[in-house]
């Protein structure tokens, strides 16, 4: 136990020095960090939002809507397919999450199945099987054909919606000019957004709360919105929408879309040249410009509606054909609203609505206070433990304390290198580790005391102390590691930070308190060759 191979000694030195060197950047002020040459470690610990201040948002995608939308499309596809095959049917619709249709002649059922099967396509399999799966599950029972979406199809749809949404959320957040936002998928249908330094996420939430599905449509000339509301009739091919402005007024618009929002190439906030009101200037791509030109040419004198998320932002009258593919939206905006609308139009529409499920925002004041409190607690805790160890074990206590300080350095080094996030509970984890890390030394020293009391000489007693204590040390630390691992798996945010520092602290403490400490004791024994030891 007290003999060390040369390579082990080298390894101990290398690890300890690496621990100190990689911790060092954390003591350099941020402003001078750029002066550190690239070949030297220059990564600082990544502080969590609870310490540096910022906003954490958990967004949920409304995935039910995705499936509903797909089923609605499917109804239309089935209708045209059955028509093409001249198969008579009744009662085509959505029922219990499936598209259901009654084939009039039972003899046609099989033919209908084949026709509908033609609509089916192949989607990638799940993580358990690489086998591709079909997206439609078609079931024939007598005259009834029911078509459902396979799990794989739903999954693929949600996944692609999440990917698209992340991209669009990123574009919108980038517009806010924040630094280092983190935007990532969480679970199946969630998006995690962390924006450091943002202490009022009001605008962010306003931007994320809009799907921003935009289109230009003609206002129906069959009757006015008020009439439609009064008579409770909506002519075919039109729908009743409301204005975004209060008081909400009904507007009857055509279902047919003149130009879709996906045709926009740019949108910028600006001011109306006549009345100085905030407006949004937009540009179409060439296809959009052509479509818009044709419709405006054919409908001079009629009003058209600019529809955003099924609300009419404004409904100007077409005074002349607009051929250049450029236009202006004016709708009683404030400067802020015009700015937000421009951002939304530039970033594109979300495939599905998202909701903020969880929000945690920490202001810079609290973050700074937490760091200070954590530092003070860590320093005072360390001093108390160090003094206690020296009082209890004298010289051996000093050795344990050196191991303890190395341990703290290594925890910081590992956190810096892994770029793990340090949170306030994480600091608590480190302070707790300071208290528990000496446990290994306590176990060893108490054991040595016992062996000395049993009449063994210094070397055999020390030898036995390390030997016998090892199994206890391992068992004790592995059980704590199990807790930490589970906490990491199940926890989120700050609590996860606690698990990280706890786990790192356990691993490094076994190294410093057992191996490094043992090496120091062995060097001391060889140099001094003591006749007796006092513990």
């Amino acid at each position, binding site marked *: 136990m007290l003999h060390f191979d040369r390579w082990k000694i080298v390894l101990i030195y290398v690890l300890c020095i690496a621990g100190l060197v990689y911790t060092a950047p954390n003591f350099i002020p941020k402003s001078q960090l750029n002066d550190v040459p690239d070949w030297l470690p220059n990564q600082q610990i990544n502080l969590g939002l609870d310490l540096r201040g910022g906003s954490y948002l958990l967004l949920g995608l409304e995935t039910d809507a995705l499936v509903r939308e797909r089923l609605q499309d499917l109804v239309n596809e089935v209708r045209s397919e059955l028509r093409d095959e001249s198969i008579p049917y009744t009662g085509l619709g959505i029922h219990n999450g499936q598209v259901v249709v009654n084939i009039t002649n039972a003899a046609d059922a099989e033919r209908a199945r084949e026709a509908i099967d033609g609509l089916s396509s192949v989607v990638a399999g799940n993580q358990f099987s690489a086998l591709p799966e079909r997206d439609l599950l078609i079931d024939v029972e007598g005259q009834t054909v029911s078509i459902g979406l396979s799990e794989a199809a739903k999954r693929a749809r949600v996944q692609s919606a999440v990917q698209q949404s992340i991209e669009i959320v990123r574009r919108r957040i980038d517009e806010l000019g924040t630094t280092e936002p983190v935007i990532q998928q969480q679970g199946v249908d969630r998006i995690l957004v962390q924006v450091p330094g943002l202490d009022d996420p009001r605008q962010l939430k306003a931007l994320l709360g809009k799907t921003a599905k935009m289109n230009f449509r003609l206002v129906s000339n069959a009757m006015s919105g008020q009439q439609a509301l009064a008579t409770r009739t909506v002519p075919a091919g039109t729908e009743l929408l409301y204005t975004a402005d209060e008081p909400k007024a009904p507007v009857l618009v055509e279902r047919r879309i003149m130009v879709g929002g996906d045709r926009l190439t740019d949108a910028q906030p600006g001011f109306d040249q006549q009345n100085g009101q905030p407006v949004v200037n937009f540009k179409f791509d060439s296809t959009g410009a052509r479509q818009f030109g044709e419709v405006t040419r054919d409908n001079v004198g009629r009003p058209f509606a600019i529809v955003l998320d099924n609300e009419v932002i404004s409904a100007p009258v077409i005074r002349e054909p607009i051929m250049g593919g450029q236009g202006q939206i004016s709708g009683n905006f404030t400067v802020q609203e015009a700015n937000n609308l421009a951002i939304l139009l530039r970033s594109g529409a979300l495939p599905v609505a998202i909701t903020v499920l969880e929000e*945690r925002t920490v202001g810079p004041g609290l973050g700074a206070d937490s760091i200070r409190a954590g530092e003070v*607690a860590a320093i005072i805790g360390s001093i108390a*433990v160090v003094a206690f160890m020296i009082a209890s074990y004298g010289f051996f206590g000093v050795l344990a304390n050196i191991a303890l300080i190395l341990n703290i350095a290594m925890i910081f080094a590992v956190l810096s290198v892994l770029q793990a996030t340090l949170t306030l509970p994480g600091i608590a984890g480190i302070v707790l580790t300071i208290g528990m890390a000496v446990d290994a030394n306590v176990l060893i020293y108490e054991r040595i005391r016992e062996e000395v009391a049993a009449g063994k000489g210094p070397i055999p007693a020390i030898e036995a102390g390390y030997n016998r204590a090892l199994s206890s040390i391992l068992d004790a630390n592995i059980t704590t590691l199990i807790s930490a691992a589970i*906490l990491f798996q199940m926890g989120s945010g700050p609590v996860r930070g606690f698990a990280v520092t706890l786990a790192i602290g356990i691993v490094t403490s076994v190294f410093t308190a057992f191996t490094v400490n043992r090496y120091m004791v062995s060097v001391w024994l060889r140099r001094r060759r003591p006749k007796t030891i006092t513990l």
Partner: protein
Amino acid sequence: MRHLKLIPDDTKIPFSRWRFVAVGFSLVVMIAAVVLLFTRGLNFGIDFEGGILVEISTEGPADIGQIRSDLGGLGLGEVQIQQFGQPDDVLIRVQSPKGEDADKASQAVVSQIKSVLGDSVEYRRVEVVGPQVSGELVQDGVLAIVVSVALMLIYIWFRFEWQFSLGSVVALVHDVMATLALFSLLGMEFNLQSIAALLTIVGYSMNDTVIVFDRVRENLRKYKKMDLAELVDLSVNQTLSRTVMTSGTTLLALLALFIFGGEVIRGFTFAMIFGIFIGTYSSIFIAGPVLLAVGVTRDTTTGGLGGVAKEKASGKA
């Protein structure tokens, strides 16, 4: 130089003689815990119940009455307003709005609060947890504790024998229940940090129990004829000095955190300090007696890993 010794050498405290008293006491605590949890319940924080939490810092000491009457006009349902550490620090808690669009409504509540309190106060912290997420957090929290206790059971079973495993897990459940009872009794907010505290207590208590059991196993090999109660007592006494030392250093660190670590983690450290005491108590007074009650198979002369290895070897043959 004489060193500090909290525990004299060669203590011979007959712990197992008091085991019926201790177990009786713990049983009373457990029954009280169950009664408390069912009657008073836990004061769930917004992590588990959903809701809105706003921490503000005012210029000069906060006028809680004024804030209460300002917010009272919003009709937000039950609003809790309390001082948080400093006199100018106030914590406001509002329940989640009920109904279909609770997530969106919660967001609206934050805007309402901010518009009433204005920009003259510093918003130190705003947390909004919707009903969907809080439900999942409850599930995850309960699962975390159950899985962790189960894994410990398996680990100890593998390293020792099932009797040890049973003893340590009874001790763990005891500690978790006692800590929950404390939360309920004092009406302390139970949140995600509390789950972290519970899991750490589970880890710490296990740690303590393992040290004692390790010694029991060693002594079982050494003293083949010794009466089991005597042997458990001997083991506890032999490790007592270590137990007290480690509890001591850990408590020192935790006290520093409790006093200087700030208001945000005070509940967390308080629970942990309690946990150190209860964990130390249970490894001496609960884990040991359970071991005595179920007995130990002493003919496995090597025990532990050796025993497992032997079984494997005979299985092969």
